[in-house]
């Protein structure tokens, strides 16, 4: 008993050591890359003698100042709320619509050209209209984020439904499933792993559009921070700080969604 316990212990230590090693191997190369870039960045700023572009330390200081004034957390929360709201509305509308278009070919023939025409229009082009429709409110940037993510979501859901192997549906019908049962027991589980990548890409787009969306009609958020820092006092340290925060949060969110993706496709 004791001996086997001992064995188990060493085995556990060994395996946790292995996990630690794998983690270190994974995390060291990007840290080295980041360090090199930071060094090159400071050298470049000092060598060129620029008064406008900030050094990494200046940016770090800007971030700490923002964090101390708790403005940073406030801005991050506002930006996340807008992105999640716009994206959620796009999911609620886009997924059922995409399912319908994938399911009923005649409907797709009627509506798909319109979607393909609207899709290449940059969400930024909608800014003037968004301001007219929603005025100076939170709704305008949310609308832009919604638009940016809606079309990729519709297309992902539509293609997902179309690519479900017909024999799954044939088998479902053969076992006497009604259309709603077929949807729930065959279509949705068959489509889910096929659209999850599309949903992640759509979220990426929503996050990218954030800055532009917050240029209009709001007075908070990471996008607003960048515009405001430039307009108010040419504070490029704050501009770069905003950019970095957007990049970092984007990375975190993408990692999170990838985890969900792995979990769904098991």
């Amino acid at each position, binding site marked *: 008993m004791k001996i086997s316990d001992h064995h188990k212990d060493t085995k556990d230590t060994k395996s946790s050591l292995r996990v630690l090693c794998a983690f270190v191997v994974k995390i060291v190369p990007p840290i080295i890359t980041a360090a090199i870039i930071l060094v090159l960045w400071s050298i470049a700023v000092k060598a060129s003698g620029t008064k406008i572009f900030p050094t990494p330390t200046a940016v770090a200081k800007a971030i700490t100042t923002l964090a101390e004034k708790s403005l940073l957390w406030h801005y991050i929360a506002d930006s996340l709320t807008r992105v999640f709201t716009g994206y959620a509305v796009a999911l609620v509308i886009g997924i059922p619509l995409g399912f319908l278009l994938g399911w009923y070919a005649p409907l797709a023939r009627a509506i798909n050209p319109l979607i393909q025409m609207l899709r290449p229009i940059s969400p930024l082009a909608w800014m003037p209209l968004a301001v007219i429709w929603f005025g100076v409110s939170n709704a305008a940037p949310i609308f832009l984020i919604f638009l940016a993510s809606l079309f990729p979501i519709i297309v992902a859901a539509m293609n997902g439904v179309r690519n479900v192997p017909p*024999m*799954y549906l044939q088998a479902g019908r*053969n*076992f*006497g499933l009604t259309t709603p049962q077929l949807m729930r027991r065959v279509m949705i589980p068959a489509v889910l792993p096929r659209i999850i990548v599309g949903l992640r890409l759509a979220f990426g787009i929503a996050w990218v559009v954030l800055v532009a969306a917050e240029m209009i009609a709001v007075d908070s958020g990471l996008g607003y921070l960048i515009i405001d820092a430039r307009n108010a006092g040419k504070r490029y340290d704050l501009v770069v700080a905003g950019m970095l925060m957007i990049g970092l949060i984007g990375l975190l969110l993408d990692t999170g969604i990838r985890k969900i993706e792995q979990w769904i496709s098991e």
Partner: protein
Amino acid sequence: MKVQFSDISMRFGAMEVLQHITLGAEEGEFLCIVGPSGCGKSTLLNIAGGFLAPTSGSVTIDGEPVTAPDRRRIFVFQERGVFPWLTVEGNIGFGLFDMPDDERRSRVAQYIDLVGLKGFEKSYPRELSGGMKQRVEVARALAVNPDVLFLDEPFGALDSITRLQMRSELLRIWRAERKTVLFVTHDIEESVQLADRVVVMSARPGRIRRVVDIDIPHPRDLSSRRYIELRDLIFGEIGLAHQV
């Protein structure tokens, strides 16, 4: 007749796929349909399954015309028809959704046993070999206790050794369950090994060239004179010299 095709013709647009097919299968019979690819044999099976309506003619099962898919007659595809999001258990129990839980469980266990998948109840299809996936599909079909099975080149994607094993498995199951089986294949050897009767079809537009009685008792000796005679008869009927 259990399954009766009466003067079935089928065209897709300008393409004539089947011409005047009249054919019957007896209750409990194992009927193989062979023919060159594109001869319409899968189409014929889909018509019998109620997935396609023929351009003219009709199919009846137990005298009732077939108009839609039905749980009393199940279609088995190549192993790609198993649902990848369900376990072996989930797949086999798929058609038993309106059965009480304990009854369903015992039925699923019974068919897992029949197809030799004990120990793999909780496995997902991606963890199984091609032959095992095919067993799952057969068990899923049998679990709803259909009286007719349609098999559309079910072993086409398997390697030749697994294919041989699956054939004898299928025969064992067929003897145990006594379903009427319509089995489509382009493999002449396979048809002579399995069937009570082999229906030989022509190239498109598919017509019945000949129906061959396979009067060899099971288990069949694949080097017996009669086996080779019947096999070569079918090869000749399809217009292939049996040489490489």
